[in-house]
């Protein structure tokens, strides 16, 4: 999508949301409560940051249409970190000390989240990151919540699906970035599930061909193949060399961008994720409909994560009061929250509390997402 058409869509979206999307318009008045947001609208993380921005802006409209925070409107100030942790840090400083925001949403990428967390943690500003909890230092930051699952949970979801189809010999194709991180969690978990990783093959980020790695996985005769990547290439290669075993992909490949680039290979691939816009769960329907009306496209996980983050901070503000200190807001945030993406519990040790039961398992059939009936039982 070009920038101009994006702006046109955004303008259209804003108009639509303002005019028709919300049945009941509540009045808000008084000074707006400022909430900062940092997302990667440009650079390598734009595939995450653009949908997140859409989710945030829609949530802002929704919250204000429903009366804001005790009658006062909220204003989400969205900044772009260009996928760069240094930029994220300086934008965070500006939002916190310059614009005096009450809370911070984002950033989109783990490195930026870790950088910004240093400031929000030190100054007791509530932060809700659009990333799964990352390096050990994040465990001590008890005022930085996360609305996406930790990689250990993503790895668990892959193994749960493998268990459900009784696959015990698994081949893995993963990239050297995101794939490495998930792999580190997957290895120790595999034993617990009685799964043997018969081939683990790596490829560099942005690799244009992974056929030989896929051939090694094929030669190991696995019962199912895990692909952990943020690109369409391994999916195409797996189908090109006629691997017929079930393919289970980590959530990183779940965007329309990658699925479109898979072409005819986007078939018979299962993805443990959260939002299947084509067939949402009952509690996701309202959000999906609203999103479709506003943007004329179907939302996925990152749109929903950002939407949830904005509503979580609004709930905390409603509970603690619009002028509550950061410390009070943090305390108010530490509670269970039933979101569109998942059922969170921010009092959990990982500042996320997403249960494995929140995952839905989508299946690509002829390039289209369908939702499988499989869910992990508690």
């Amino acid at each position, binding site marked *: 999508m070009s920038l101009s058409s994006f702006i046109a869509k955004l303008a259209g979206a804003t108009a639509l949301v303002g005019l028709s999307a919300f049945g009941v318009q509540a009045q808000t008045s008084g000074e707006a409560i400022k909430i900062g947001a940092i997302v990667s609208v440009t650079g390598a993380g734009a595939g995450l940051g653009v949908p997140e921005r859409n989710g945030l802006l829609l949530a802002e409209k929704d919250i204000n249409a429903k009366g804001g925070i005790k009658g006062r409107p909220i204003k989400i100030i969205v900044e772009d970190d260009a996928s760069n942790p240094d930029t994220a840090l300086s934008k965070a400083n500006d939002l916190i000390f310059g614009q005096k925001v009450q809370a911070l949403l984002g950033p989109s990428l783990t490195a930026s989240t870790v950088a910004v967390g240093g400031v929000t943690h030190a100054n007791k500003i509530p932060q809700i990151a659009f990333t799964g909890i990352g390096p050990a230092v994040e465990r001590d930051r008890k005022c930085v919540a996360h609305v996406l699952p930790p990689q250990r949970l993503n790895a668990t979801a892959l193994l749960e699906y493998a268990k459900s189809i009784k696959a015990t010999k698994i081949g893995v194709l993963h990239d050297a970035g995101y794939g490495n991180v998930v792999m580190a969690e997957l290895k120790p978990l595999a034993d617990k599930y009685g799964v043997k990783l018969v081939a683990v093959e*790596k490829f*560099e980020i942005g690799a244009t061909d992974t056929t*030989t*790695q896929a051939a*090694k996985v094929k*030669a190991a005769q696995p019962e199912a193949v895990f692909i952990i990547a943020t690109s369409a290439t391994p999916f195409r290669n797996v189908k090109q060399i006629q691997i017929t075993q079930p393919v289970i992909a980590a959530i990183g490949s779940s965007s329309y961008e990658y699925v479109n680039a898979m072409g*005819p290979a986007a078939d018979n691939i299962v993805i443990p994720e959260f939002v299947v816009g084509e067939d949402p769960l009952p509690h996701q329907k309202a959000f999906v409909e609203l999103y479709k009306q506003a943007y004329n496209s179907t939302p996925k996980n990152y749109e929903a994560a950002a939407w949830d983050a904005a509503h979580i901070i609004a709930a905390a503000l409603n509970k603690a009061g619009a002028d509550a200190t950061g410390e009070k807001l943090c305390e108010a945030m530490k509670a269970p929250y039933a979101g569109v993406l998942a059922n969170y519990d921010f009092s959990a040790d990982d500042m996320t509390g997403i249960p494995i039961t929140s995952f839905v398992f989508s299946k690509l059939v002829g390039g289209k997402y369908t939702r499988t009936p499989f869910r992990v039982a508690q």
Partner: protein
Amino acid sequence: MTLSLVLQALFAGVTNGIVYALVGMGLSAIFKGSRVINAMQGEFAVIGAMTTVLLLTKAGWPYAAAIAGGAIAGALVGAFIEVAFVRFMAKKNASEDSFLLLTIGLALSLSASILYFVGRDGHLLPPLGGEGVLIVMDAVIQFHALWLIAIGIGATLALRAFYHRTTIGLSMMAASIDADGAATTGINVARMRTFTFVLGGLLGALGGILVTPLIAVDYQLGLNLTLKGFAAAVLGGLTNPLGAAVGGITLGLVESLAIIGISSSYKDVVAFSVLIVIMILMPQGILGRAGRRGG
């Protein structure tokens, strides 16, 4: 390690190698003719492929015409860059580093414009020869990959014939070896340099179009292709476009055999160690000496 796995690695290695070769040949043709290291060679591939995709899907052209359109787009962008930037800078005696900076800047700007005008999505082209595959001892190769290999070899031979048999090719070679000498015999050296960029753009676009049925082309593919093409060109001898063909296939094979021979985790370590050894033993590149003698 089974024979079928080795065969699969060979198939993948040669297929990738031909792509590296086409990008590398263009890079090396431009270097030979202008002494410019073209850091935007991969963008020619993206331009060629994207133009073909747009002509085919948006304008509804027949596939063959769309391919020709994509290749011509690559050639025209090549000509434009020479006329609009390189010629101007050459008149002011710009150094080789300034040209390198120019092409790096162009690579980034072109990639950004593609993002702006075409969007983030990856696009695929229909495979030549349909979706069919050839299976040899359980190793699979797409008919399209066979076409890619055949066309790649054809292009290499055509390039050789062009440099050795045609007046323009010979003039381009003369202008690259001794610009002053060539000028005294009536060769328009500046025009030959434009042709060099046209040739580079054409070869890059051809590589991009041929690879797009195998991997989706998007705005950020260019840099990856440039790096592989550059390695292929240096390996083969930067001054000899035919060397890039040899270099590309060597690189493709070394990469894929490293995966099955050792481990995919050490693929780049192994591949680049082999390249270092080759460069130490043959510092001019595999066919570099031939290039110095005129190719």
